[in-house]
């Protein structure tokens, strides 16, 4: 078990270095001049060149990369070119909002998709299964921005039930429970948009693995030993279906963080997604690199977590040589 984990961690380290190198090169080899916005219009080219030299931008790329890497390892991702503030602080500010949104979407996904997938997997080709299948394909096919606008039109404009933008109501000064309620109401629409597509995908996977498991000999053997149906479903069916589930969810978490871009933009939600959009637009290289590196770390961490969970639910992983 410990060896299994150690091996996973050891594999993660070179992967992380590889990602940092690729990210650094990709960002730095892009055309365009990020320093247009940094210097005033009256700066002469000679002065600008002197500035660049002083900040180390004339050094070979390798030297620049190593310098960036040593700082990054110490937790210093540099300063945003546009806002002049530490990248870590900028990411930290937005992280809470994105975490809230992604977390709510994830919980919503699991709460809906797990029972639904289990149900349709056990009753394949029934009426509910057909309805859920059709709905799933519709949800996967409809782009998130269109779904967002549809939901805004129905729930915010027509029914006037939910707010459409921001984390809190602007100008309102809520405290305590009222504040929580305000945030929760703002959360409903963007979290639903993020969750709906994921629900459709997760539901399909779970349906497939459950319906495959139902035909397995060992499930039939459990019934043959007189084990009641609910005891066959939990724990046998659920624990065997957990592995593919863990894979999907561990991939979904980083995807939720980065793909929230559109949703965050539409709902004016100040999160990582919008921050990265701003960074790209403003050629804010240090900020962009910081965000990409952060997402890479999250992805690796989720993979590592998935490996731990695999080993917990499946002895074949744990006991493999």
């Amino acid at each position, binding site marked *: 078990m410990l060896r299994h984990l150690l091996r996973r961690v050891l594999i993660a380290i070179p992967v992380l270095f590889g990602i940092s190198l690729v990210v650094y090169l990709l960002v730095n080899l892009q055309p365009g001049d990020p320093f247009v916005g940094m210097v005033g219009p009256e700066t002469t080219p000679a002065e600008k060149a002197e500035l660049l030299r002083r900040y180390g931008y004339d050094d070979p790329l390798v030297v620049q990369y190593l310098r960036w890497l040593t700082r990054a390892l110490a937790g210093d991702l540099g300063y945003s070119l546009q806002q002049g503030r530490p990248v870590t602080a900028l990411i930290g500010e937005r992280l809470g909002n994105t975490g809230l949104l992604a977390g709510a979407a994830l919980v919503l996904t699991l709460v809906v998709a797990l029972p639904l997938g289990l149900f349709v997997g056990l009753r394949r080709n029934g009426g509910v299964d057909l309805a859920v299948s059709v709905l799933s394909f519709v949800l996967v096919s409809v782009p998130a921005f269109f779904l967002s606008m549809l939901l805004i039109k129905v729930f915010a404009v027509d029914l006037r039930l939910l707010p459409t933008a921001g984390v809190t109501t602007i100008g309102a000064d809520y405290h305590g429970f009222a504040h929580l309620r305000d945030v929760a109401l703002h959360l409903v629409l963007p979290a639903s948009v993020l969750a709906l597509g994921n629900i459709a995908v997760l539901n399909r996977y779970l349906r497939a693995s459950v319906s495959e498991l139902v035909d397995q*000999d*060992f499930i039939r053997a459990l019934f043959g030993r007189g084990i009641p149906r609910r005891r066959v479903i939990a724990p046998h069916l659920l624990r065997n279906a957990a592995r593919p589930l863990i894979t999907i969810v561990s991939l979904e978490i980083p995807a939720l963080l980065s793909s929230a871009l559109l949703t965050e933009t539409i709902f004016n939600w100040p999160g990582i997604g919008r921050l990265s959009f701003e960074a790209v637009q403003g050629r804010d290289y240090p900020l962009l690199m910081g965000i990409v590196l952060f997402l890479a770390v999250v992805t690796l961490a989720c993979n590592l977590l998935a490996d731990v969970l695999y080993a917990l639910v499946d002895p074949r992983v744990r006991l493999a040589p």
Partner: protein
Amino acid sequence: MPELTPLMCVKDLDIRFAGSSSSAVRGISFTVGRGEIVALVGESGSGKSATALALTGLLPGDAQVGGEARFDGTPLLPGNAAQRNAFRGRRVGMVFQDPAAALDPVFTIGWQLDETLRRHHPALDRKGRRDRAISLLEAVGIPEPADRLRRFPNQMSGGQLQRVVIALALAGEPDLLIADEPTTALDVTVQQGLLDLLWRLNRDRGMAILLITHDMGVVADLAQRVLVMRHGVIVETGDVREIFQAPRAAYTRALLAALPGRAGSATAQADISAPVLTVDGLRIAYSSGFGRRNEVVHGVSFDIHAGEFVGLVGESGSGKSTIGSCLLGLIASTAGRITFDGKDLGRRAPGDVAALRPQIGAVFQNPMGSLNPRLTIAESIAEPLRTHRRLDALALRRKVDRLIGNVQLPKGWRDRLPAELSGGQRQRVAIARALALDPLLLISDEPTSALDVSVQAEILDLLRQLQQETRFACLFISHDLAVVRQLCQRVVVLRAGVVVEADRTSRVLDAPQEPYTRNLVASAPLPDPQRQAEKRAVRLGLRREVFA
């Protein structure tokens, strides 16, 4: 012997699967007496497994079941699910074919035993259940049972797993055990132990057994009464000795006649010339990660002449298929020399080896897996010809038609897909494809293991006939000694990657020198109830009078 009151009474059982126009089981009636071992025999598709599943209510929900079944006076069919559920495990236990698939892979053996014991003995506390689990494992012959409780299914061998499955079935102390091909997935030596176990359970506990099998050797070994089933109908019922000595139904006679071992032995002469293939000191290792290598074949040597069948026999894991794959160039060897048609395969450039490849044909166990399901049989057979021979369309068509004729399939079938063929017909296509390039050597890896006995005999005849015409050399990999005896002039016995014995087939199988070979030969059940009973008496040290 007093008249046995039937434990299970089945009347006019009819099973129809959803989407099928005809019934899989068509109105069969039979009984199983208390403490009786009844064998339900038939080839695949005869409806024997469906019968077992219907009696325990384990058929898929969309299957229609008609007729009646009573267990100890209580109706099972037609009956409600709750009633059947109360029977399952407690009155009727089930054992399945593949023990590795019949246990939940993510829970320990102990956990699964505990779960079943909790269900059937609610009064037992945790300690009581643990004690009971240990005694159950002891009863089925698992060594160090307390230690085994902590194991997961993937940490145990197939034979041990099947014992665990039987222990689980015994947990509810059922009166009837339905065993569906309980030893088919196991090696002969392991099979023997399990058949002994079932025999003991029947004798000591008076447990009735409904044994479902296609293997007449297993029937002869264990059964007291036999039901022969074909196309969903019972064609013959009778005492086991009657069935073997004086079968009445034509189908039963055909089934017995098709048994290998009754059809004579190999007689063809090999060509006395340089061998087609010489394997000398072959070693093969698999990589097991991080630079470690796990050697599975430790210096194996043998040769094959033209016109000769050489059997490569051994239990699963002995390395016989690995050697076959190596000769086909699918796995690299780590040491040793392979000389094929006078050329050293190891010392040649990869391009030269590729040029020799068309000279070696291959037939595998499962023809459904080795034929592309989207190609017609003519396209499958033509594929090696297209790759290695430049033939015009007409010549190709003629050659393919001749090959289809050679394996005795109708010419009009060239445009059929594998799914439209039976298992035996598919294997004929695979053989035609393997022989398309007139190879010097044919490597056949368990080519008849997935087939029914009668079909098996046809395929063996076909192979022999084709070899007489084209004189190819054949390495015949098999675990079935009866088949090897029938086909092969010489046999190489492999154990854990080492050759333990190699000689003429008659010498090795009739007078085995090595204990391993002797055990292997003795383990294979003979289709003769009397001799099986005698063998068991000797093996278990029982007094002869029991069988008199």
